[in-house]
């Protein structure tokens, strides 16, 4: 498959990606080597879900496949699970368009 498996458990699909995808159910405390760092998971992350490699501020782009897949909605630490609770799409946002209309 495309990309590199870090620490035997996190698929890093492109060099620019700031998340990895768990290719197994990962337990809290699992560490993933990333450059000079060792990223530690602060909670369990299910198979197929994403783990942050860097710190995010709200609004920062999440990058996977070498492309922007959305943005953080709150501050995220390295090693944190990244999903719908702290990240959102930038596209298909009919709700945002509706708010803008009202405003």
């Amino acid at each position, binding site marked *: 498959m*495309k990309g590199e498996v870090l620490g035997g458990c996190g698929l890093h699909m492109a060099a620019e990606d700031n998340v990895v995808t768990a290719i197994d159910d990962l337990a809290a405390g699992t560490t993933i080597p990333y450059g000079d760092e060792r990223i530690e998971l602060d909670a369990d992350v299910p*198979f*197929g879900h994403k783990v942050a490699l860097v710190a995010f501020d709200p609004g920062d782009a999440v990058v996977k*496949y070498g*492309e922007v897949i*959305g943005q953080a909605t709150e501050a995220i630490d390295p090693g944190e699970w990244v999903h719908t609770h702290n990240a959102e799409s930038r596209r*298909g*946002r009919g709700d945002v*368009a509706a708010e803008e209309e009202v405003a």
Partner: protein
Amino acid sequence: MPTFEGYERSDGPAGVRNYVAVLPVSIAASAIADEIADRAGEQVRSTPHQMGRDPPAAARAQIERTLTGVGCNPNVGAALVVAFGTERIDADEIADGIADAGRPVETLSVRESGGTTAAVEAGVDAAGELWDEIGDHRRVECDVSELRFGVECGGSDATSGIAANPAVGVACDRLVEDGGTATFSETPEFIGAEHILAERCVDESVRERLLERVDRREAAAELMGVDLRGAQPTPGNQEGGLTTIEEKSLGAITKGGTTPVRGIVDYAAELPVGGGLVLMDTPGYDVESVVGKVAGGAQIVAFTTGRGSTTGNPIAPVIKVTGNPKTADRLANNMDVDASTVLDGESLDVVGDRIYERLRSVASGERTAAERRRLEEFAINELQPNELAELRGEV
């Protein structure tokens, strides 16, 4: 040159199946068409749907195009068009379109037959006669370049973009290299990845058309005033690790492979033979999307799924490919190819070649899991009022 064993047709490319299709013109004839097919035997397939008797013009055109296209699919050896008798859609016109493709075709009107019971009986007789005309047809060796290969993804999860889709993409590349047509659709699942496809378009007009279609789909969400999330990605997608439509799309487009995008056609519009990679503009809604491609002439479909979609199609065999090892195991009876080995390190090329081989064997008659269980869902995309308004330039 790779080949398959197919049913030659007088007009156009070979089919991979040889069915009598029973096509209801409206919802009022749909249950009757189903009953006819149920009673007439395994080789008789109905295409039930919920389209009304008097749709607005643009919606009607799409329904007619879909019904005619399905009737002309190379897998259809003969067709029976069933109308209630008062529809705006003319059963004779649909039948003429199918006859033009060289297929034996009959029409049936429920009103003219004397009602439901009489129509079912007459339909079973007619289907039997049509089967007699084509039942002796035998498979002969055909070139894979006659295949139009439709690719769909449904019940996606994170493995779809990592394993199943890229593996199917390899099979698409192989078929295109061997002179066939590969097609994928689900336009909302280009959102966030359309720039990648745009770069591969063979010319400016294809690029413009593609981007315009993506815009239109995204605008539909804005029209409904809600976040696309829930429908795209679905709860199942999200449980499987897909967080945003962009992430889903970037994984989804890999199922078409890497060759240049030669065109993008309308829902249920005819796909070229030997046309390379051609897209179709459809909703992400799987059943409608597969039907669109089959109406466009796709004889065979590969459908990747992470969570485990079990749907098929009455007219075209659907090959289920999963990249999720749990799904490959738990839903083994509904899956055809296990692509989860990619996650263990098996090369995409090897798995892709395996899919390409399965494509040829299914084309030659091997039945898929969905076929063995007669899981064959069918629905026609109905243009809704806001879509119609947009087409008329009112939005």
